[in-house]
Each structure stands twice: as structure tokens, then as C-alpha cells.
């Protein structure tokens, strides 16, 4: 998939971002990629109205979307079995990259989280990833969305390497993370903790 291309012609993307400048940047990037139709929404109400009477191929949503929040909006799409867009690819774009926000986004059923400020390269890679690595949808009483369990299988294709990328070793390429003595020590420590 390295250097793979995607064809976004004929597609409609919905950009739901309360910030006009931020939305303009994202729309500019999507236009450059050849997306045929980009619709913008500033509130969950606007976004909902668009999704009632128009066909959308991808939703890009900001968690700060007023009034109910972008993640609540995503949950309302994913958890409604009657919603025809239930399995639409959804990207969340946010400048707030605290772990609690990322976890909440993941658990609301998004396909991918993109950090702001973003760039054409990053967005293209995320879209390529979604196209080339579709994940099965999990339908449980508490969650509907793409399978949240996926392993690191190397760096995204075409991504530029950083020094810190060395940590992203593909699963299966190395031996066990813990040696037997590490496990023994952990068990021993846990046992002594319980004894106290």
C-alpha cells in the first residue's frame, strides 16, 4: 500500500467544525484531494439536518461542536440501528489530545482521530488508512463502531519516519515483551502486596 493513491472524485464529505478558519483549512485540503462535494456544518443541528436529506460518504467532526458536542453526535449516529449512516467512516479532528478525549472519541465509534493542527500529508494518510484497512463493525449493547482492537502493523504507508517511530515495532516481529523472570518478579510482587 506504500505510496497508494485514493480516488475521492464523486464523493461528498461533511465537515462539522464550529471554527470557521479551521473548517476552511480542512475544506481546502479536501478540495485539493479532489473531493467533489464538501458540506460544512457549525452545530450538531446543522450536521443532523444535512444527514437527513443528503448523501454523505465521510464525516469529519470536531468534539467541541455545539450544542451537544461532536462525540455525542457521533454516538447518536452509531447507536441508532435505524440510521442509514450508521457505518459511515467518521474522523474526529481535535486539538485537545488529552488521553481522556482520545479514549472518549474511540469509544464513541470513530474510525480515526486526527490531531490539529493538521496537514495535507497527515489527512491523506488517514483517509488512505481508512480505505485500505476497513475494520469490522462491532455491535454490542454498549458500543457500535469499528473494532477498537487493532494491532500496530508497522508505520502507515508513506509516512515520514521520526526518531520516536522506532518504538512502533510491528507486532510479531519481536519476542515476548516480558521475560519469564520479569513475569515471576511481577507475580511475586503482586503476591506480597496481597499478603500485606
Amino acid at each position, binding site marked *: 500500500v506504500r*505510496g*497508494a*493513491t*485514493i*480516488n*475521492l*472524485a*464523486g*464523493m*461528498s464529505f461533511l465537515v462539522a467544525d464550529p*471554527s470557521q*478558519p*479551521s473548517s*476552511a*483549512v480542512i475544506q*481546502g*485540503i*479536501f*478540495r*485539493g*484531494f*479532489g473531493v467533489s*462535494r464538501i458540506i460544512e456544518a457549525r452545530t450538531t443541528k446543522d450536521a443532523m439536518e444535512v444527514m*437527513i*436529506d*443528503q*448523501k*454523505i*460518504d*465521510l464525516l469529519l467532526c470536531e468534539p467541541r461542536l455545539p450544542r451537544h458536542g461532536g462525540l455525542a453526535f457521533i454516538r447518536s449516529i452509531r447507536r441508532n440501528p435505524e440510521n*442509514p*449512516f*450508521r*457505518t*459511515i*467512516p467518521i474522523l474526529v479532528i481535535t*486539538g*485537545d489530545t*488529552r488521553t*481522556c478525549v482520545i479514549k472518549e472519541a474511540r469509544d464513541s465509534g470513530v474510525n480515526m482521530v486526527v490531531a*490539529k*493542527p*493538521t*496537514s*495535507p*500529508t497527515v*489527512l*491523506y494518510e488517514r*483517509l*488512505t488508512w*481508512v*480505505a*485500505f484497512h*476497513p475494520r469490522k*463493525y462491532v455491535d454490542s449493547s454498549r458500543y457500535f463502531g*469499528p473494532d477498537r482492537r487493532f494491532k500496530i502493523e508497522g508505520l502507515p504507508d*508513506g509516512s515520514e519516519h521520526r526518531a520516536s517511530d522506532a518504538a512502533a515495532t510491528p507486532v510479531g516481529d519481536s519476542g515476548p515483551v516480558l521475560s519469564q523472570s520479569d513475569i515471576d518478579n511481577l507475580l511475586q510482587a503482586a503476591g506480597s502486596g496481597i499478603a500485606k
Partner: protein
Amino acid sequence: MMKDVTAAPEEDVDFGERFARLALRPGGPSRQVAIQRAQTELARLKPELSRLIATGCRDLEAALLMAKRDDQDRAHHIKQAYAISESLRDVAGSLGFSFVGLIASNLCTIFEAVSTGGLPYPRDIIGCHLQALQLAQANVRQDGIAAELQEVAAGLTKTMRLLKSAAASAPVVTDPSDDHVR
């Protein structure tokens, strides 16, 4: 007759599968061309958004000055500064205004830490960022970080590193997911 592609979705369309199927059609521009075109689009937007960034910088400066002077209504001014910082952080970096992006990003980190109780209001560090912001406004139309600002940027980055380690060692008194400032 051609099918109306903007019409409401049919009941049986699997949009997850549809996106992958359409995206993998042959005939799209190469990755390099698509990214280049997107960069051209951003360059086209730059003059207009540069003006918004300049206005944002002025508003942020005013909010920080008010937060410094007005002890009684500081929470309100911090909230305002936080919102402007978020907006600047989201856009400045994408357009290549790295110095403004750095200041805005640092301020967001500080305000987040303050709002969660992980940090007392760091008046001096905010003051450094205010001064840096005043320098940035003189250089707001330049791409990247101007040579004369490199040292300031390195200083701000180092200050933030120290602040983060101080915040990490300090006890957090409130729930980290609870955001009081916004």
C-alpha cells in the same frame, strides 16, 4: 436518466464499505499530486486566514493583559484567552505560522493544566508567552519561525518542559476530565 447522487441515502447502503470501494477505484491523482494540490489550496487561503490570525493574536494579547490586571474577573479572561489560543493553535500550524502555533499550543497546555487543578496559575510563564506573542505579531506574515525568534522559541519550549515536569510531580486535586475553564 442519471441518478441523483445528492439524494437521501437508500436503506441498504453500507457506507463503510462504500467509502472503501469508491476510494479504491483507479483513476485518482497520485498521492504526491493530491498533497501538492491541497498545499496549493492552503496557499490560496493564506492571505485571508493570515488576517484572522493577526486579529486572533491581538485579541489573545488583550485577554492575557486583562487576566494579568483584573484579579476579580481573571477566570473570565482566562476562558477567553483559552478559546482564542485553541483557535490559533488549530489553524496557525497548518498554515506554517509555527511561532504563533507554538505560543498558542503552550498556552492551551497551561490553561488545561490550570483548569484541572494540576497547576497554580503560572503568572510569570504566561508573561513570557505574552511577550513572545508581541514579538510574533511583528513576524506574523513570515513562514516558519524567523531566525531572530528561534532562541525565544527554544526558551519557551524549555520552559514548558520544566512546567510539565513540575505539574506531573504536583498532586492533581480534581478529576482530569473535568474542565473548569472552558
